[in-house]
């Protein structure tokens, strides 16, 4: 099992790892106090974890059960400005508009050169 979770998703999981199976409502309340998240934010994250196969949902009361132990989860890191969640064109256009892309080592070197020259 190789599940990659982001920091915010790990916060949701850590509630389950610590307190066992709890209703979604409980998680939302707890994380609102701890992190200042609103209810919708927490629910969105729970749904993402369900989609990734990290949480199993059961009725009634939207009970959440951790499917993976803490040790098997890897921390996901974003290297891009905006991750794939925005699948496809949306983020591409946005990044293109704001003109953010990674630079090559040579380009970085050239920029440092410019600073040195103008100093």
């Amino acid at each position: 099992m190789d599940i990659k979770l982001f920091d915010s998703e790990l916060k949701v999981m850590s509630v389950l790892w610590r307190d066992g199976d709890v209703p979604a409502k409980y998680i939302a309340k707890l994380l609102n106090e701890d992190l200042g998240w609103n209810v919708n934010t927490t629910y969105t994250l729970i749904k993402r974890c369900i989609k990734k196969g990290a949480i199993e949902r059961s009725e009634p009361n939207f009970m959440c059960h951790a499917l993976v132990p803490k040790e098997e989860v890897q921390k996901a890191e974003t290297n891009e400005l905006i991750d794939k969640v925005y699948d496809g064109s949306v983020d591409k256009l946005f990044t293109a508009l704001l003109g953010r892309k990674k630079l090559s080592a040579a380009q970085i070197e050239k920029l440092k050169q410019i600073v040195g020259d103008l100093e």
Partner: protein
Amino acid sequence: MSLLQMSFAGAIMILAIIIIRALVINLLPKKTFLALWGIVIVRLLFPFSLPSAFSVYSLIGKHTQKKDPQIIGMLPIEVKRQVSTIPNNILNISNSISIWMIIWIVGVLICTLFFAIVYWKCRQEFQMSLPVDNDFIKSWLGTHRLKRSIAIRQSSRFSAPLTYGVFHPVILMPTSTEWENTNSMRYVLTHEYVHIRRFDSLTKLVLLAVLCVHWFNPLVWIMYILANRDIELLCDEEVIRLLGENTKADYARTLINMEETQSGFVPLCNNFSKNVIEERIVSIMKYKKSSIFSLVLGFSLVFGTTTAFATSAQKEPDYFITDEDDNTTIFNGKLMASQKFLVDENGKYTYDSNSELDALFSEFGIPSTKFIDSDINDIKFTLEDTSNQNQDHLFSQRSLYTEEEMEQIIADIESGKIPGYQISDFVEGKVPGFEAGDWFFINFD
């Protein structure tokens, strides 16, 4: 002013700013460009027109048209009849306007929806950020207070620091931030602080709104990109001003280092973004405290560009009318013909019976029903060839008159601006050139 005219006037001004920007960007305070973009935005959003003799449109008019006063005719003596050379496609205008209108509205909706979704998605992601527990941050927030409380949070979903929220601004730092590097932290936070203080996220939203309204105008897209870059440049300038001019090289290196840590691999060599960061670095390094000279230059550029491009041509009177006593009346109204009189390819006039003109006729006691009831919708009449070739162009230039203008003409006649005649004289065909049978009262009996 129609949207298209506003967009066109805006585009010309954007073009001028692009050129100025390319030539003197590092010589002027960056506020100059923000001021210029601001004027373009006003120009693009508000349909006012400020007539100015110094407007480029006045100058263009003088050179291309050789605008002699247009003498439409020695009215009471003889009104010259002009053969119209109205282009045929005029017949389609009333149809096509609605089609373009629909396309425009659909475009606006698509753009708005698109950006709303992007914004909403980002917002959702922002809200999943985590609080930061860090002594440096706490003390920094203590010394940088605004009326709005600033929060600093972290997220692993973004690799560059950013700010969101207008009323409850939040600085979002990547989780990978080197928190202990207080030197670079100071630059980064000050940069975001300046953004917050200047309400830049609001400015960006206004720019986005302009983009949605003028989505069909490629120059507005260029403006959107350049204005966003200028917001960054101005912000950098402000940071250096706050932290001291001797910090600029250090600040520039911090920015470069941040670019460096971001680049894991290079998928595509993007020349455009390379230029963006290069522009920023050069701009920072070339920063100098604004001299009086640069301030004056900047101010006069804003003033000059505004008078030249944000104003419209000074209106010259459309007509002189000279009566038998050689009294000349100048007025801006248009004479005769209305939008509803159309000319087909055979030079025949057709009359649209749905015209509001009918209401006007009845106002003056003319049985307009005779127009509407005639089983042929088209009243056809042909004008004789003009006896004065020189005046041909008059009609072809001003081929479309709205009902409003038509009303104005009638009002002008009523109020005696066209001396010697009353509206009843026109109706009864007493005015030379407007005799029944020649003009639009042809099917009267």
